[in-house]
């Protein structure tokens, strides 16, 4: 086992948690990510392999699914982001490649992204200040890739009062600042 200590996207030893008014903002670090993109003409084969091996049925455009411990978010034509807990699936990309074989290009994305989970009853008030996504009509299970604070992000509606945001890791501080500012604004 290596001796290198991880830090969080916000550069902390432990993940950050903020409570502002009814809103909680949680820095999520226990998440591994791997992108899968179907090789030419192999989309069906790839999707079948993932369904057979880990019960993951890849979602339609604009959606995400969960088949615990795995999840998948639609990214683009024939391309998805697979999620799993980091502590138990740090080598998620290798796992997925093992399953998909030559039907897919798999790329480790774990540390390309930071994730914040925002929860609370004021969720829509907060997100309509940050994103053009139609948050009030966005059903649980939908996932939209759009901009927030000038950053390309995924908004993943997990529940009526729970949204996950995936954003470029290097800009975690700016995104967190934006989330906190918006939460104070509506608190």
């Amino acid at each position, binding site marked *: 086992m290596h001796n290198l200590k991880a830090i969080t996207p916000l550069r902390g030893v432990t993940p950050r948690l903020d409570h502002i008014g009814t809103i909680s903002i949680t820095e999520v670090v226990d998440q591994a990510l791997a992108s899968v993109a179907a090789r030419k003409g192999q989309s069906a084969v790839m999707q079948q392999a993932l369904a057979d091996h880990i019960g993951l049925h890849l979602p339609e*455009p*604009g959606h995400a699914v969960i088949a615990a411990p795995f999840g998948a978010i*639609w*990214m*683009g*034509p024939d391309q998805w982001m697979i999620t799993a807990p980091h502590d138990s699936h740090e080598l998620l990309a290798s796992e997925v490649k093992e399953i998909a074989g030559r039907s897919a290009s798999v790329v480790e994305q774990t540390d390309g992204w930071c994730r914040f989970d925002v929860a609370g009853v004021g969720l829509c008030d907060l997100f309509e200040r940050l994103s053009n996504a139609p948050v009030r009509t966005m059903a649980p299970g939908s996932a939209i*890739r*759009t*901009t927030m604070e000038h950053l*390309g992000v995924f908004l993943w509606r997990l529940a009526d009062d729970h949204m996950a945001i995936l954003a470029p890791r290097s800009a975690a501080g700016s995104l967190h600042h934006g989330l906190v500012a918006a939460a104070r604004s509506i608190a």
Partner: protein
Amino acid sequence: MIIDHPLLGPRDAQEFTYLGDASLINRPDWQCENALSEFHDYLYLRDNPAGEHRELWYHEQGDRSWLVVTRNTVTHEILSVELAHDVAKAVTAGRSAK
């Protein structure tokens, strides 16, 4: 503007990057007889109509699809939106059929 993405539905044009005339898909054959003049025309001679125009938009803050958007440049009415990948496949299919 709102661009009706073929896969994702209506999305704000702010999420897109504009490139220009969709004829950029029709790249000439580098080995054809008058390649130099073909490439010259391909690169420098673009239509800029006041009216219907087929143009390339990139969903950079979205799914990274290149789209061919047919838009009226006077009214901004958008008449159709296609995945450029599909358009390009049709172009190459047409080419190999020749």
